C-alpha cells in the first residue's frame, strides 16, 4: 500500500520543522559557540555544560519540563498567555522551540570546535589589516569556520528529523499540525498498519544514510579549506 495523504502531510511537516530548526539554530549557536571558544569567563564551564545538557538528558525528561514550562502555569505559558498567544504546547511553534533546545548541542559543538581550530591568530591578522572586530568575524572567522557550520547544519537537520520523545511529549500527535514522520510511524505500528510503517521507516533509513554520507563527503572536500 502506497503512503497516503497523512504520510505526505507528516513528511512536509517534518521537513518544515527540521529546516526552521536548522536556520534558527545556526543563528543562535554561532554566537554561543564563538563566546565559548574565546571567553576566559568563569561562566564558561557552567554555560558549556548547560548547552550540552540536551545531549545526555532523555528526550522525555526534556519534553516533560518543556511541557510544564509551556503550560498555563509555567513561566513560558504565563508569558505567552499574557501576550495573548495562548499556550504553546501542542502547537507547531512549541514543537519548534522544543526541537531547537533538543538539537542545540549538535549545532554549538561543531561550530565551537571550528572556531577553536582557527585560533586567535587570523582575527589578530585581520585587526592589523584594519578590520573592526565584527568585520573580522564575518569576513575571516565565519568563512574559515565553514566546515563547522556545514556540519552543524546537517547534524541539526538530521537530529530534528530523528526526534521522537520531545515531539510526543510537547507536540502530541495532531495530524497536519504536530504529527511528524517519527510519530506517524509510531501511530501506524500501534494501529498494526505495518505496510505504511514500512514505507515511512524505510524512507527514514534512506534519508538518514544519505545525510551521513553527504556529511562525510562534504567534510573531506571542505576540510581542505583548513590547514
Amino acid at each position, binding site marked *: 500500500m502506497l503512503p497516503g495523504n497523512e504520510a505526505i502531510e507528516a513528511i512536509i511537516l517534518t521537513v518544515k520543522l527540521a529546516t526552521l530548526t536548522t536556520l534558527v539554530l545556526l543563528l543562535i549557536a554561532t554566537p554561543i559557540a564563538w563566546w565559548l571558544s574565546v571567553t576566559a569567563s568563569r561562566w564558561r564551564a557552567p554555560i558549556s555544560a548547560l548547552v550540552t545538557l540536551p545531549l545526555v538528558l532523555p528526550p522525555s525528561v526534556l519534553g516533560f519540563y518543556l511541557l510544564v514550562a509551556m503550560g498555563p502555569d509555567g513561566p513560558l505559558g504565563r508569558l505567552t498567555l499574557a501576550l495573548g498567544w495562548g499556550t504553546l504546547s501542542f502547537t507547531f511553534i512549541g514543537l519548534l522551540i522544543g526541537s531547537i533546545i533538543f538539537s542545540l548541542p549538535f549545532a554549538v559543538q561543531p561550530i565551537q570546535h571550528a572556531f577553536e581550530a582557527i585560533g586567535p591568530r587570523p582575527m589578530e591578522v*585581520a585587526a592589523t589589516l584594519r578590520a573592526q572586530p565584527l568585520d573580522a568575524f564575518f569576513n575571516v572567522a565565519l*568563512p574559515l569556520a565553514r566546515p563547522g557550520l556545514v556540519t552543524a547544519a546537517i547534524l541539526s537537520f538530521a537530529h530534528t528529523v530523528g526526534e521522537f520523545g520531545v515531539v510526543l511529549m510537547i507536540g502530541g500527535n495532531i495530524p497536519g499540525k504536530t504529527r511528524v514522520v517519527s510519530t506517524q510511524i509510531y501511530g501506524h505500528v500501534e494501529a498494526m498498519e505495518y505496510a505504511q510503517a514500512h514505507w515511512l521507516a524505510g524512507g527514514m533509513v534512506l534519508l538518514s544514510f544519505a545525510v551521513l554520507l553527504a556529511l562525510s563527503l562534504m567534510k573531506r572536500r571542505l576540510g581542505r579549506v583548513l590547514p
Partner: protein
Amino acid sequence: MTSAAGSRIRLQVVREGFRLAVDLALPATGITVLFGASGSGKTTLLRCVAGLERAPQGLVRIGADVWQDDEARIFLPTWRRPLGYVFQEASLFEHLTVKGNLHFGLKRTGSRDDRQVLDSAIRLLGIEKLLGRLPAGLSGGERQRVAIARALATQPRLLLLDEPLAALDHARKQEILPWLERLRDELSTPMLYVTHSADELARLADYLVVLDQGRVTAQGPAASVLASIASPVLAGDEIGALLAGTVVERDARWHLCRVAFDGGSLWLRDSGLPLGHLVRLRVLARDVSMAVEEPHGTSIQNHLPCTIESSAADVHPSQVLVRVRVGGSTLVARITGRSFDALGLQPGKSAWLQVKSVALLE
C-alpha cells in the same frame, strides 16, 4: 612635531615570572632590530606596540601619532593603528586567494592611490605570478612574501616583523632576505624587526635594541652597538664589526673588488656587484690580527692603519678583544693577551690591522 620625528615606546608589563620594562627612542626610518634570546620579551614588546596586547602603563608614539598613552587615557585598538604586522608564520587567510589576501587590508584602508601601492608591493616582493593561487599551494617562502606584501599594501606608518624568517629553512631564508633588504633600501617606512638570528641582525639592522630578560641592555646605531667589546651583543665567533661601504674598483684579473668605507677600503672576492653598489661588510674579530708596523711579505691582502680605542678580556683568558678606529669606522680584533702585551698595544696608540677575511652581506 613633523612626520620625520622618531618614535617613543615606553612600556611596562609584569606577569608571573616575567617582567618587561623598556623605554625606547627609535629613529624615523630604517630597520630597528629588536634582538635577544627567546623569552627576552621581544615579541611581547612588538605585540604591545601593535595593541594586540595591552601594557597597563604605556606610551606608544609613532612619529606624531599617539597610539597609546595611559596618562592621557589613549589606547587605540589594533585596527585603528596604521601599522603592518608580519607574523612568524605567514598567517595568510586560507579561504582567500593571494589576491584576496592582498586586497583585504587595502579595501579597509581606503586610500586614493591604493592601486599603485598594491602594484608596487607586488613588484617589490616578486609575487606577480602567485596572485590567483590559494595559500595552501604556496611554499613557506612564498607565503611569507605574500604576508609582507599584504602588510605593505595598507601603507603602514610602521611595519612590525616578528621573526618573519624563523619558521623557514636556510634556503628559504636566503630567498627572502634580499627582498627585505630591498624594502629597507627602497621604502621610507620604518620597520621594527624582531629576531634572535645574528645573520639577520647583521644584514638588516640600521638601529639595534638588545633585550635581555625584559630589559634593554644596549641600543644605538647597529655598527656601534655591534663593535662594543665590554659586553658583546653576539657571542664567541660572531663578535665583529659591521661596515657600510661602496664597491669602487674591480680587479678583473684576480677576481677581486675593492669596497671603500669611512676610513679605508678592503679587497674582497668579486661577486659581480657593479661599481657604486652599496654593500654591508661584516668583519669578524677572529679574522683580524694586529701589527705595530705595516706588514710586509704576507699573503693577507688587507692592511689598515688604526688607532686603538680600548681592550677587553675575551671569554677565554688567553685572548683579548681590541676595539680600534679606522677613520670614521670601528673594527674589532681578537688577539692573544701575550701579543697584546708583547707589542705594547694600549689605548691611544697607532697600529696596523691585518684582515684575513671579509663577509659581504648584500
